[in-house]
């Protein structure tokens, strides 16, 4: 961001405030474009992954191997009638998708795209991300309440319980990385993973392999992160076989697309966070490798995590709402606590 401001000042925009404003605007546009493009790719990917898992081809007609399918869908969504139910709470109904999307969008302020490619390398970057992610729940509850539909209300209620519960294992397992690196700053977190076991770089430097507790924490994060992104097997807020479409039942057209975009952006966030905290961020798995740029490594790792989430979605049934709570409070949270204790002990004894 600083470079961007300096660049803008360099090309003749003298006013500091104006330059900063322009920089923020252009960065937001970039992130928005990124989310939109990523969603395009991810939705295509999801269709293809599900297609091949289910022994079919997936989209094949629009463009080469259905590459333009998502574009066609987007055009369809744009052309749809924007329906607001007569008895809905109009203002909240309109606000809900915006808030949900904004909460997701805000995360990108502190989310890295590669070495140095980060909007604001906050000294409490990870903390900021965890804090802002929880805002998503406001959007979903709002959507559930404002729709004036009982099914939507159920979706909103479930979502509140779910996100509040799963935030704890998410936070606690990310804390493992923080303990090991001794910082909340994203860049330092990643840089701390350049060397590790036996003083070696590459894959041996990554956090998840440093000690058994970090290894477990990685999987705890993966499960809890999937739950926070509302993906199957934890997609209870919208569970279509029970609640029709849950909190999003009454939405159509672009408003609905915002929820959709946020879901895919959330998947990406989970992927990047898992890579940054556990999988060495932009470091290559091969020591001393400089051939492939760091941002590509980060993207590859994040996409791998996204793929795992898709894989799970098309394989597992959905949990019931009480089982969801049990998974979080009886299993993931205690495991995460034990992990923290274990890592602390490990660092004292071997660190």
């Amino acid at each position, binding site marked *: 961001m600083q470079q961007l401001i300096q660049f803008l000042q360099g090309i003749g925009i003298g006013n500091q405030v104006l330059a900063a404003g322009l920089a923020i605007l252009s960065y937001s546009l970039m992130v928005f474009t990124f989310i939109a493009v990523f969603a395009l790719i991810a939705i295509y990917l999801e269709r293809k992954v*599900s297609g091949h*898992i*289910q*022994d*079919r081809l997936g989209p094949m007609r629009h463009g080469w191997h259905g590459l333009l399918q998502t574009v066609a869908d987007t055009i369809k969504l744009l052309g749809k009638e924007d329906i607001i139910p007569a008895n809905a709470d109009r203002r909240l109904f309109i606000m809900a998708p915006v808030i949900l999307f904004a909460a997701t969008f805000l995360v990108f302020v502190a989310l890295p795209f590669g070495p140095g490619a980060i909007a604001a390398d906050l000294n409490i970057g990870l903390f900021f991300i965890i804090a802002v992610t929880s805002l998503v729940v406001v959007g979903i509850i709002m959507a559930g309440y404002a729709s004036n539909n*009982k*099914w939507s209300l*159920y979706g909103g*209620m*479930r979502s509140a319980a779910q996100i509040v519960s799963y935030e704890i294992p998410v936070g606690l397992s990310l804390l493992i990385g923080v303990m090991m690196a001794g910082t909340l700053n994203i860049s330092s977190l990643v840089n701390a993973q350049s060397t590790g076991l036996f003083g070696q770089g590459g894959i041996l430097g990554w956090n998840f392999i440093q000690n058994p507790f970090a290894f477990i924490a990685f999987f705890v994060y993966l499960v809890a992160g999937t739950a926070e992104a509302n993906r*199957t*097997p934890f*997609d209870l807020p919208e*569970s*279509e*076989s*029970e*609640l*029709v479409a849950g909190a999003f039942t009454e939405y159509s057209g672009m408003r609905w697309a915002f929820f959709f975009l946020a879901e895919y952006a959330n998947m990406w966030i989970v992927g990047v966070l898992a890579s940054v905290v556990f999988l060495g961020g932009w470091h290559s798995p091969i020591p001393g490798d400089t051939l492939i740029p760091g941002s590509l490594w980060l993207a590859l790792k994040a996409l791998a995590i996204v793929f795992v989430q898709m894989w799970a979605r*098309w*394989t*597992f*049934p*959905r*949990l*019931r*709402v*009480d*089982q969801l709570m049990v998974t979080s409070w009886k299993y993931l949270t205690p495991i995460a606590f034990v992990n923290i204790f274990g890592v602390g002990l490990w660092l004292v004894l071997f660190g």
Partner: protein
Amino acid sequence: MPDLRTEEMTINMGPQHPSTHGVLRMKLRTDGEVVNSIEPVLGYLHRCFEKHAENLEYPQIIPYVERCDYLASMNDDLGYALAVEKLLGIEIPERVEYLRVIFAELNRIASHLVAFGTFGLDVGVQTPFIYAFREREMILDLFEMTCGARLLYNYIWIGGLSHDIPEGFVEKCYDFLDYFEPRIKEYNDLLTTNKIFVERTADVGVIPQDVAISYGLTGPQLRASGVDWDLRRDEPYSIYDRFDWKVITGTDSFGSLGDTWDRYYVKILEMEESAKIVRQALDQLPVEGDVQEAVPRKIRPPEGALYFRSENPRGELGFYIVSEGHPKPMRVKMRSPALCNLSVIDEITSGWMIADVVAVLGSLDIVLGEIDR
């Protein structure tokens, strides 16, 4: 907080709902996620089958019969045809009997595949549905090859069949069985023993034996509760007594006897047994014979009434036919298994959660066409 005012919320599930398997409407009285009572409201798919039947000649009723249980038309046809044949007292050629059994059992597999797939959808997983339909498609191809129709066949006629099987059918049918039998293991690996699936279904919606019997449950739903009762064996009709197969009953391998998991698993195992029957029937199929040899020119049963029951994929399908000696029946009453099976839902799911209602409903394997008729 003693002053906190809570009240039940009445919520309407259906007639347009993804998991009510048609246009069933259920009034749920809920306390949060917990369902206190369920009241099914029927009639959204009522098509006056029984009234229509009074104004049609016997063979003309067949298309109406199969529209009742559209997932197992062959079985419905078979039940009706056998009932009328019994009323007429006619003998059926061997070859027809074998072909009827082959088609009825193939249709049973197809129907159970739909039940398996949609049950997966009900508990929130899409993939088994596609797998099930992949196999069902092959069965429908076999049907299409024989009689040209894929859903409503009008194939089993009173006294015979509409077409003989085409050339190459037997080989294709063997091919299908060879392909299908190993697939059952795939289903079990994918869904049956999945931890989340077991958590969702084991011990949920348990139907004890006495409840199952007193509510008049039949078919896989009854057998899942451990009642060893199958009309194909205990009251053999057609030529079912010639085959070597066993009646599947529920086990308590996951959860307790008669739970949702058992109702699901009985259907999986029954597909295996049906495949066995089809294989034996194909082996013994007589080569020669005209399938329309015994089709009567004029169907005018003698005066009298008769109740005939047969085993449909959903349970006991009964026809009560009253004849006054005319070409049209005086009355045709259909005992549809799904209606009786559905009646138990309030008894077993009160106190469970909304998600469980969906799961139990899916395991009861209802077809609304048959419930409303």
